[in-house]
């Protein structure tokens, strides 16, 4: 399930929904990204409606094949996000923990630097657009 939302969401509720009835997969990994306070007054995330969802769906499918996932779920905020709010939640379910971890890691690397999002930080010294760091680019290159 891929979902973009301009509303805050409940990570624990999403985790429980994802796990409900899941007694075949033994392993569920998750990653939750939270808006940090050092970003000043918060973030603004822009997507390209329609294109962003389909690009994420494409990479989620590639993760499912590559890591033998039983299920994957990605929830991503758009719009204005205040510090402390969740930005992104990635959930992966697999028979084995290594695959669940690696798929989650892979999906986050992709979301950080290859998914159609643009992020503006409202900092103490004004607004500025954030681009992927050298570390982000190195992280995603591991999977090529």
């Amino acid at each position, binding site marked *: 399930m891929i979902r973009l939302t301009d509303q805050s969401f409940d990570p624990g509720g999403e985790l429980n929904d994802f796990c409900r009835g899941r007694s075949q997969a033994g392993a569920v990994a998750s990653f939750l990204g939270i808006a940090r306070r050092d970003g000043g007054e918060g973030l603004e995330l822009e997507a390209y409606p329609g294109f962003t969802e389909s690009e994420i769906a494409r990479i989620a499918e590639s993760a499912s094949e590559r890591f033998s996932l039983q299920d994957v779920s990605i929830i991503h905020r758009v719009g204005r996000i205040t510090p402390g709010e969740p930005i992104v939640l990635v959930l992966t379910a697999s028979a084995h923990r290594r695959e669940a971890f690696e798929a989650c890691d892979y999906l986050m690397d992709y979301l950080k630097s290859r998914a159609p999002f643009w992020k*503006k930080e409202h900092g103490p010294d004004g607004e500025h657009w954030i681009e*992927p760091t050298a570390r982000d680019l190195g992280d995603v290159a591991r999977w090529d």
Partner: protein
Amino acid sequence: MVRVLLFGKLRDVAGWREKTCTPDPATLSALKALICADDPALSRALAAPGVQAAVDRVLARDDSPLNEGSEVAFMPAMSGG
């Protein structure tokens, strides 16, 4: 007529978010020339590393052909999560 969308900082540089161009440019590079004709800052921003374009929501290259009614998006380096 093609519809042009700018995302992220490209929009701040150009000062617009969406525009229709007519008559139809034949390729992506012809469209770029058209929207940058009187905007050297946008021209530089579109040439920056990491900038990508999509035609009808499929990633495209400079020689990609455009069609009547195409939606063209110019996207700076992506960063989510």
